[in-house]
């Protein structure tokens, strides 16, 4: 399944009321890649991910995933997709095992199979002892781990991640990064939306930078670097999004602070 086009986006536009958030995004995504989807706050990253996952159904443009139309064949697409949202909001009165059993069963897995997978996945995050503890007692990072495990239960071919590392400790971050690399080697595609430039730079096969709802750069880090000659992704990001005067802004901040 390597190097097949699995996501095709044509002229994707989205408005919230009068505010145009996405201004016609065109993208083709091939399998087995880690796509780093970056952009400043409010650029439209989360909106794109939510549309691709079927959370937002009203949009303009055409999207096909695995050759299926997102508008008409949503169900078939959802079966092959995993999603890790930015905010770890879960049903607090359930335990992770109960939550994952529900997710697994909804995705057509047998209860026993779900349980075994849940245990194995949670064990990787050293959370097996917490499987039967209510989510209400978990920290933000622990909840995020539950979300990551739930999204991977059904072995999806395409995984959408919206800031998946929020709240995770350093060890877990390293572990997730390694995991993503392994998944892509197995032919899985990871669409990774983030603010963390260093992580995106290290793990992404392809980086897509959006600003104000438009794609302003697209390619591997090396390809982009060849054109721009920036030291790292962070520098490239700030230059392309027009925010190069950080020093002046910091000075203005200090002045306002000391007033």
């Amino acid at each position, binding site marked *: 399944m390597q190097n097949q086009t699995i996501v095709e986006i044509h002229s994707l536009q989205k408005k*919230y009321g009068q505010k145009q958030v996405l201004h016609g995004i065109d993208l083709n995504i091939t399998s087995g890649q880690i796509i780093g989807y970056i952009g400043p706050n409010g650029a439209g990253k989360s*909106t794109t991910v*939510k549309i691709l*996952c*079927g*959370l*937002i*159904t*009203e949009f303009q443009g055409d999207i096909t995933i695995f050759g299926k139309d997102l508008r008409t064949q949503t*169900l*078939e697409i*959802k*079966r092959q*997709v995993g*999603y890790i*949202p930015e*905010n770890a*909001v*879960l*049903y607090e*009165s*359930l*335990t992770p095992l*109960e*939550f994952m*059993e*529900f*997710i697994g*069963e*909804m*995705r*057509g897995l047998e209860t026993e199979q779900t349980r075994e997978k849940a245990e194995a996945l949670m064990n990787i995050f050293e959370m097996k002892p917490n499987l*039967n*503890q*209510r989510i*209400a*007692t978990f920290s933000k990072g622990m909840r995020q781990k539950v979300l990551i495990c739930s999204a991977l239960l059904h072995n999806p071919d395409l995984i959408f991640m919206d800031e998946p590392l929020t709240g995770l400790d350093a060890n877990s971050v390293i572990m997730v990064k390694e995991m993503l690399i392994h998944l892509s080697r197995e032919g899985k595609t990871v669409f990774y939306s983030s603010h963390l430039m260093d992580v995106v730079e290290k793990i992404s096969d392809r980086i897509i930078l959006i600003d104000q709802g438009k794609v302003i750069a697209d390619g591997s880090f090396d390809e982009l670097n060849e054109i721009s000659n920036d030291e790292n992704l962070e520098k490239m990001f700030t230059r392309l999004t027009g925010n190069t005067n950080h020093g002046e802004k910091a000075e203005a901040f200090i002045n306002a602070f000391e007033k």
Partner: protein
Amino acid sequence: MPFRWFIEKMGADYNQFIRILQLKLTLDDRRIKVATKKNKNAQEKMLIKQSLGQIFMGVFFSVLLIMIKSPFTFFYLAHTFIMALMAMMIISEFTTILFDTTENAIIQPLPIKGNTMSLARNAHIFIYLTLMAFNLSVLSIIVAIIKFGIISGLIFISTIFLNVLFTLFIANILYLGIMRIARGEQLKNLLMYFQVAIAIFFMAAYQLGMRLIDKTQIQDMVLPVHWYTFLVPPAFFSGFIVGLSTLNFDLQHLIFITEAIVLPILAIFFTGKYLTPVFNRKLMDLEQGDRASKVKIESANKSLWYRLMSSIFVYNSDEKAAFKMMWKMVGRERLFKQSFLPSTGFILVMIISSFAGKPFDLDKISQSNMYLLVLYSSLICVFTIASSLMVGPYQSAVWIFKTLPFTSSANFFKGTIKAAFVRFIIPIYLVISVIVCIIWGIKVFPDILIAFLCGYLFSILNYYIQLPIYPFSMEKSAIQGGSIFFKFFGVIVAALAAGFLHNFLLGWFPFANLLLIPVYVGAIWYIDQVFVYRKINWKAVDLTNNFS
């Protein structure tokens, strides 16, 4: 400025107090906007409906006052109703506000005194309670003005403020008492059961009290003043109104007037200065305790009852998964239980109050059709279960369902209502059925089955005709009040009609009641297999729930 002086005397920072209060009111306004999807018309409608519901409730509770001639008795009972309803409202609606710790993360790092924070919290509740108190007293105020003159009416209005202050003080004392005996999860559960018990108590007291009053003599009813009358809050508010409006300043009225002015102000001063700091400390414990306390996890899906019920009531895999998850959640979600459980107590109140005031003759009762009343009383909780299922803090968790491959969005809602019905209503109905069988004999079994089918039909129908709001994802303030109150009465009328039809068929010709069985089974099949899939679709779900 006396108000500023008063607030500062209670140990709070006036400017901060006002800002926090403004913030709370702005947030309330925004919550309504979110709940009504920013539709101004819908917002106004919702507020009008809430007010009308409260006015209707006030009329319902205080209609008997119209007949009373004695002003002291009139105002005494009017204040008793206000106080009882206020206490019930604080307990059922405002506990969450009183115990709200969500803003702690923002406010605690700021240099704000505990007193300021708690006082703002109490002032926030005071504003809503005052509005509610006036809605509930509309009839009493009109009657008071017509019967006793405009002066009495105006003084009555001023005492409503004092009454609310005093009730708030009592609520603070009560909650502090409870907080002393438990903490963390235990405390939250204790509070929930306390709320349920109090709600049932007030309903029972009113129902039974009204039945025990001799209505033929109510117009001439005069309450005597004993020494202990001076300790009863409604009495001193009533004495205050009568004393001032008739300019009667004898010792008795002077005591009442002094009490009515001094005690609520002292009470609120005492609350602000001494109770709120303790309350705040306990509230921190409550938050800390949450992390520390261990919770029991039951393996629900292993129970025989669960397996039996899921095989009878749920048919496809999506529905089964939803049923399994919701079975656990309805048993654990505090807001759901807090909202639903009082209705189960009302069943008992309804049954007892239908037999109260009459000579109890078991032989005579067992010969009658009274068992139908008992069976159909259990339908009360059928109607509250739908709204209770919507209440909860999980507005932001509904993404979970949108990303899952449900063949139909209706399946999730089917699994949800069935889990709640099976877990809460069937056990109650079974207990009632056993009692009915003991008193009326096994011969009434077909009627038990018919009333059960009717209850099931109304449960699912009532849930499916509501907006498809995902379970536990709606602010209580967004669904409480008028609309629910009207719907409640609307569906009660439908249930009564079903009961009357059943009763009519029993007397028409032998076994005519059995005709209802195929009718109900057919209706249940149609609603479960056809109607729900037409009513609940992704479009309706998208319009109602916020996924973005």
